[in-house]
């Protein structure tokens, strides 16, 4: 699942990029977002139209 970050337009894709979370740095932990060729941006923006 890609992260939803309030107020930011997230660069996301199907393939997550590696992050460290809660002290653990797995190869491809859940909760990360990634962009690659063909990725799209999406917004969870509080200032965006619904």
């Amino acid at each position, binding site marked *: 699942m890609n992260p939803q970050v309030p107020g930011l337009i997230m660069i996301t894709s199907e393939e997550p990029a590696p992050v*460290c979370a809660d002290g653990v740095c797995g190869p491809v932990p859940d909760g990360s977002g990634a962009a690659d060729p063909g990725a799209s941006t999406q917004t969870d923006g509080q200032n965006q139209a619904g």
Partner: protein
Amino acid sequence: MTRPGSVRLSLRLTAGNTGAAGAVGPGVTTPLTVDVWSDIACPWCYIGKRRFEAGLASLGDQAPPVTLTYHSFELAPDTPLDFEGSEVEFLAEYKQLPADQVHQMLDHVAGLAREVGLDYDFDALRHTKTLAAHQLLHLAKARGLQLELAERLFKAYFTEGGHVGHVEDLVGYAQEVGLDPDEARAALADGRYAADVQADLDQAVAYGIQGVPFYVIDGRYGISGAQPPETFAQVLAQVAAERAA
């Protein structure tokens, strides 16, 4: 997954965008801001740093001017200043991960680090609390030496078995990059940058950041994780092109 209320924009990043953004460099006079939430104790953050640098460099003459700022994120606030044990033992003890899984995980990370020229030494790594290191990074920011200190601390932690929690070790690294050791020691003693560190941590919470590295481009675009260089290049080119339009 898009949660209710979110909007998918039409902007798409494609492999051709980098080359198509021919006017990116000349069209942008005010540097793009790149704010990075990161922890010295985060192996993906150092790898992400190299990948970002490679992505920016790949744009060559078309690279937009960028102002990069590191922000504090404590990956494991419960880490003691002096953990007596290996990285494997730390993850097994504090995160209840099976040792075999940790070995596999670290081998994988070390392999990817080598791909970007970093020789991680997890056997020598000395786990510690990074709060003081973050304070020092804020002092370095105030003196225009933050990127140099971030690089020095990452290198010490992941490749040299250096300690980035003890005051005198930190002062030594600060001095190496050109900071005044007396000022560094005093800053850590009186905690004058503690509020700045906390402000970064609070902003991370406000953004909803749960993992690092996390990049915010121009205060608008969020990128999570140690992305491939080409992704950073595409995003920078795209944002610069939007600015120039």
